[in-house]
């Protein structure tokens, strides 16, 4: 008896000691999170409210409101984001419904192609569309003139215009809406639709009165996300808006760092973007609510697919027509420009050349360094980001510490910070003592981890929620600490999600431009910045080679993750 009590007491002591270690680890992660997010924001606020001499002033904001050079971009950005959001919803909702709820042929392929537009960097898409739709030299316009015999000055599309920019932004933002709508439609249990059929509702009635209203919150959330993304994009506006003759907020903020730099104005211009983003995110949260989506357990019935009958092939044609814009045409244009002597002429045996590839990989001295930097940063960000996301999402899902809500909030907070604003904040934070990280890869690492954390966190959150806590509770009853339970029980169950998240973050790093453009130096250049620099001097062929290389690596990563044995389901859009 005595030994039993003694053993139990010893175990309890050891457990509390081990629990302390768990607590310590968790608190460390929480601290890292705080520093990552709060530090740049606080410098941003400081600079926004301070003038050159360091005294408190509201003058920066006053200038923002009075000076038309700032008011116009603000209005432009607002109109841009609203229109792009509407277009995205109009396009993504029908396709989402078709893919998730009907017997559309080749649904899997359509999903894959939407993933392809997801991973294509928007700035690369903008450049590819320059090749296609520049009013005089664009491939599509040339084809139009050749086919219709129109005079030299006529054109069908002008990409260097406000509608042109909205079009390109919508092309690469609609996957966000698609994912939300398709996933929510995937998860609607078939019971409700069966009940409607039993009560006599025809297919279309069911769709109209049951399915669509259930998907409305997701659509609204998608609209908000699309608005946010369009508002905070930097690459596409920087490439298309300048030739078109207007600024958006993001390009205006960037231009404030031209010599002589005006960081106070940049900070002041960033803060409204930040506030607006926070408001919209609150709205999205209220719309979506905290719906539980734990479906593992097979409790719901299989969703009933709507039979399209004679509309099957027209519907598929519609999907492909839509996907022409973000995927087929731009990729084709890039491929063409890679092998053509003149970027906007179709490749023929006469003007076929390998010189562009040779130039980029053997003559351009910045290529190797940029490739190296991008891979190092991609792998490091993915690893660290996924690690932090796993721990934090576990803590919030299992409510492991007091204040887990605050932790969850911090993990998703970076979504509220537009990339360029974060770049400005990080620049202001890390170009001064005690941490001068500017000029090293560390500052880029911090930026990328901060940017990719929310998405990684949300992915893993929904994955953890799908795993019932009973399994870990059983393990803890048997004496394991939280971390041990996480490591031995939960993590293996989450394996596919963790790998999917790793790849997602890796791919995200490759396409990140808005923060990198503020923080890079010649030694720490990444591919996205190199492409942007090449666009400044109009070297379209080199851009095409680099862009295609980037895309090949991205797709190879995604495919590899799907093929590794033991990593089962891999990356499907469902896992988001």
């Amino acid at each position, binding site marked *: 008896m005595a030994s039993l009590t003694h053993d139990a007491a010893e175990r309890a002591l050891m457990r509390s000691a081990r629990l302390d270690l768990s607590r310590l680890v968790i608190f460390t992660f929480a601290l890292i999170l705080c520093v990552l997010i709060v530090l740049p924001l606080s410098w941003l606020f400081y600079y926004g409210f301070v003038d050159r001499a360091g005294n408190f002033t509201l003058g920066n904001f006053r200038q923002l409101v009075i000076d038309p*050079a700032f008011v*116009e971009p603000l209005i432009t950005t607002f109109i841009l984001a609203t229109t792009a959001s509407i277009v995205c919803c109009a396009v993504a909702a029908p396709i989402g419904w078709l893919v998730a709820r009907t017997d559309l042929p080749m649904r899997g392929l359509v999903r894959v192609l939407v993933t392809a537009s997801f991973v294509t960097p928007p700035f690369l898409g903008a450049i590819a569309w320059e090749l296609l739709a*520049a*009013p*005089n*030299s664009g491939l599509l316009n040339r084809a139009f003139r050749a086919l219709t015999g129109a005079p*030299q000055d006529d054109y069908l599309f002008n990409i*260097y215009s406000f509608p042109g920019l909205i079009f390109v932004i919508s092309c690469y933002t609609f996957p966000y809406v698609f994912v939300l709508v398709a996933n929510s439609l995937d998860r609607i249990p078939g019971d409700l639709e069966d009940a409607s059929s039993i009560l006599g509702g025809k297919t279309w009635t069911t769709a109209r009165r049951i399915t669509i209203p259930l998907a409305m919150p997701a659509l609204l959330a998608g609209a908000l996300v699309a608005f946010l993304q369009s508002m905070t994009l930097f690459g596409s506006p920087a490439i298309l*808006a*300048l*030739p078109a*003759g*207007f*600024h958006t907020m993001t390009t205006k903020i960037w*231009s404030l*760092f*031209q*010599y*002589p*730099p005006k960081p106070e104005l940049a900070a002041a211009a960033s803060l409204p973007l930040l506030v607006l983003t926070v408001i919209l995110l609150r709205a999205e949260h209220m719309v979506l609510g905290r719906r539980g989506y734990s479906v593992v357990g097979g409790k719901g019935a299989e969703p009933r697919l709507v039979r399209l009958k004679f509309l099957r092939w027209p519907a598929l044609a519609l999907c492909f027509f839509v996907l022409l814009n973000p995927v087929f045409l731009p990729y084709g244009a890039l491929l063409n420009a890679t092998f053509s002597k*003149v*970027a*906007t002429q179709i490749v023929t045996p006469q003007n076929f050349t390998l010189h562009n590839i040779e*130039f980029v990989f053997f*003559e*351009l*001295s*910045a290529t190797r*360094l940029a490739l190296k930097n991008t891979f190092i940063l991609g792998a490091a960000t993915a690893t660290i980001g996924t690690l932090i996301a796993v721990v934090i999402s576990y803590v919030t899902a299992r409510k492991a510490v007091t204040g887990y809500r605050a932790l969850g909030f911090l993990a998703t907070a970076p979504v509220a910070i537009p990339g360029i604003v974060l770049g400005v904040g990080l620049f202001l934070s890390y*170009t001064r003592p005690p941490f*001068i990280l*500017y*000029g090293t890869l560390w500052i880029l690492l911090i930026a990328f981890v901060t940017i990719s954390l929310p998405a990684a966190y949300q992915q893993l959150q929904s994955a953890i929620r799908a795993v019932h806590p009973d399994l870990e509770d059983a393990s803890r009853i048997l004496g394991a600490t939280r971390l041990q339970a996480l490591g031995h029980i939960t993590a293996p169950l989450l394996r596919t999600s963790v790998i999917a998240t790793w790849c997602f973050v890796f791919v995200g790093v490759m396409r990140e431009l808005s923060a990198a453009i503020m923080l890079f*130096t*010649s*030694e720490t250049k990444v591919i996205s910045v190199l492409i942007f*620099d*090449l666009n*400044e*001097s*109009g*070297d*379209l062929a*080199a851009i095409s080679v680099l862009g295609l290389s980037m895309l090949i690596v991205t797709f190879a990563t995604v495919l590899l993750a799907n093929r590794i044995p033991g990593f089962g389901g891999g990356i499907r859009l469902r896992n988001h």
Partner: protein
Amino acid sequence: MRGWKFSRRDILKGSAALAAGVYATPLKAQAPAAEAITPALVEAAKKEGKIIWYTSVDLPVAEKIAKAFEARYPGIAARVERSGAERVFQRVGQEYGSRIYAVDVVNSSDAAHFIVWKRDGLLAPYVPEDVAKHYPADHKDADGMFATWRAWLSVIGYNTELVTREDAPKSFADLLDPKWVGKIVKGHPGYSGTILTATFQMSRDLGWEYFEKLAKQKIMQVQSSADPPKKLSLGERAVMADGNEYNMFLLKESGRPVEIVYPTEGTPLIVGPNGIFKNAPNPNAARLFQSWMFTIEAQQMAIEIGGLRSFHALAKEKPGRKPLSEIKLMKDDAAAVEKSGEDIKTRYTQLFRV
């Protein structure tokens, strides 16, 4: 205006005003002694193994120069960092402000930058042998901090498939004709040193009213001065209001349908000095690179394959290109560009709205 021929001497005198601001001599100028390329320097440079050159010259030209240097001195890797001169200036300022010393040698198309860098004490005095022997006093710094590595013009141009010779604009004033609405491409002084210098000269000689009228022509705005020639080559626009003469030479000589026009009011002359930074991470490689850049071989290469112009006394212009002596030039004043640079950019942004 009667056509008047300038002799070489007149050109050099004329560009004295250009050089005056840049190379203004204080009462007691102390240039260090000229240095030749010695085997010891080459050895020391090879030990360092690399050299980093920030420049705004068009990328393929810059890379060819870098590769030629690597071929001449194997073992030293030359890396080129190219962006618009105004962005180069901003980057150097940002890096030096955070004590990041990444750049060895810098070349800028905005001569005013070198006034600022010299004033801030960032440049190292070093006089290559060729500069001392073959370069006119107007094109080298009296204290030996920098010298003109390249020169070119900002010209009007047109695509010969879209515009006939008769219809083509002959002067800046011609560009204001309503028939060119929506057909013009031009660079931006906020990014490009070439365009900033050209805009200064044009605003002084033609007045800001000219730009007010030009802004109404619905121009296509690009960033670098290397871009308008490329846009002409693609056929994206018919006419360029400003852009690098050297890009036009290269495109024309490789068979692209472009043609240069030297405006009757005068053509802006742009000068691109080269200098070494005091805190260069590879000082010996930097000196070797700087010395090599001013040799007749390198200068002739810049002329042949770069389309640039040189002030080296022994340099020969490539036949087929209009000699500098036959072109009417606008006078530059780098000191004035330095003083009014920000003002020019602001006014331009107000007029052209980007």
